[in-house]
């Protein structure tokens, strides 16, 4: 009996142990990144600008299409349908504060930055690891964390926060399209939107996406820098990285959103 159970337990235990080890290593990488971002010297200015422009060029168009599409479909048409039954389509603007600013804007930004920018960063760092460029850097006395991870970390944090504003704006454009689909005037949409929107919602949204950016950067860099050899190595690293990022983003979103809602009851009062 015991002899039969043992291999099963071991098989279940090994992935758990592996996952815990990787989580720990990512935490260590986060700590190292934070310390070396603050401690002088700061040689990462050029790389920071390059990475910022790289992610900006890659992500802006997919993000535009994605936010307009999801905000037109999910909160626009579905919630609009429900509000039409109650004869209160003008309330769609108020609903978009919840939908676009609090949930969909930040989450779609994170999904697109992880899926488009994060994968590109993992592939890039993985390629350098496979070509042994990272080892060469270390031999030359250049710290890979300071020169490669820190600029990506800062660039992704800032750009994800800024992209959030962009996503919220195009999400609202999706809401405008939905309002036009229902043959309703746009004035009430903006009136309820602006009377319900609060500063707390906006800073919560930007803070949330900035932290999403930090998660994406750490996971992408960790997976890229630990890519193993073989033809499948870099591809597998990208695959695992994006899966971890998606799960981590939504788990973090759950904790953050409900903390924000519970500690700031004034933002969920309809005005």
């Amino acid at each position, binding site marked *: 009996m015991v002899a039969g159970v043992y291999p099963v337990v071991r098989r279940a235990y090994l992935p758990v142990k592996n996952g815990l080890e990787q989580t720990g290593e990512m935490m260590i990488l986060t700590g190292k990144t934070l310390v070396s971002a603050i401690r002088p010297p700061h040689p990462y200015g050029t790389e920071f600008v390059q990475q910022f422009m790289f992610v900006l060029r890659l992500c802006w168009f*997919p993000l535009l299409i994605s936010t307009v599409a999801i905000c037109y479909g999910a909160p626009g048409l579905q919630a609009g349908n*429900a509000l039409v039954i109650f004869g209160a389509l003008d309330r769609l603007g108020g609903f978009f504060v919840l939908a676009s600013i*609090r949930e969909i804007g930040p989450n779609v930004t994170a999904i697109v930055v992880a899926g488009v920018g994060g994968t590109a960063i993992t592939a890039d760092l993985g390629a350098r690891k496979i070509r042994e460029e990272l080892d060469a850097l270390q031999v030359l006395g250049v710290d890979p964390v300071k020169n490669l991870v820190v600029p990506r970390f800062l660039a992704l944090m800032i750009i994800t926060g800024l992209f959030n504003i962009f996503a919220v704006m195009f999400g609202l454009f999706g809401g405008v399209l939905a309002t036009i689909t229902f043959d309703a005037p746009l004035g009430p949409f903006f009136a309820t939107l602006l009377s319900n929107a609060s500063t707390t919602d906006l800073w919560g949204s930007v803070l949330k996406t900035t932290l999403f950016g930090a998660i994406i950067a750490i996971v992408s860099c960790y997976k890229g820098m630990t890519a193993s050899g073989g033809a499948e190595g870099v591809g597998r690293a990208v695959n695992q990285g994006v899966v971890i990022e998606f799960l981590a983003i939504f788990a973090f979103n759950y904790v953050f959103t409900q903390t924000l809602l519970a500690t700031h009851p004034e933002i969920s009062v309809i005005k």
Partner: protein
Amino acid sequence: MEVPRDLLGSLGDIAKFCWRVLVEVFEGRTIKFFGETLRQAGILIIGSGLVIWGLAFILGLSICGVEAAYFNRSIGAPAYAGWFGAWCDLREAMPYAFGYMMSAKVGTGLVAEIGAMRINEEIDALDVMGISSLTFLCSTRLLAAWVVLPFMYIIAVGVGFFATHLAIVEQIGEVSSGGYSLIFWMFQNPPDLFFSTIKGMAMATVIVLVGCYYGYTASGGPVGVGTATAKSMVLNTVLVHILGMLGTQIFWGTNPRAPIGG
């Protein structure tokens, strides 16, 4: 002008490739490799089931659960949180959760796997041995996805429902379990489940085809496989959102099939 032209060119290539894979499936050439199809189906269940259901659980908990409870409290009808949860889970959040995790886990996994075969010249070896590599590698995977994924999708919907119940009834707790269930199940109907499954399956089909394309045409060593994996994720992210929007527009449009109203 260079970028749009390249984009259109590669979209045309992808469409041509997808057409060939689909024709092979519909002509029944995968029957010859039925064992391989079953093996791929098993890999899908064991390798991807848990993460897909995990993401469905988290999304059901946060967006459809907590937000539903707070939104319905704010309009003064906390007992009607089940309505928000029902529509949000079935019609929007679960197809997107499924699409996101399929593209992250299965789509990029296919590129890494088939791309490595292309780099190691295993695909050329298959062709030399007289086995159609397209049928053996891509069509079997597509058929396996069609065989297994509807069931995995419906389980994901169930997991999402469970998570929403957990968040609204157990965690926030402003509605009784019976009151929640009454409203929740009143706003469900069989066509909704059917349309939602079609939405999820359309995403899954596109993701498997895109994954197979980028893997099958990978070049340039291990680095090339990594780049192709990243590229497939870009296309999948955009396509999932576009398909989600089209599905909502086609299946629900401006007729929500609600049990209330005139």
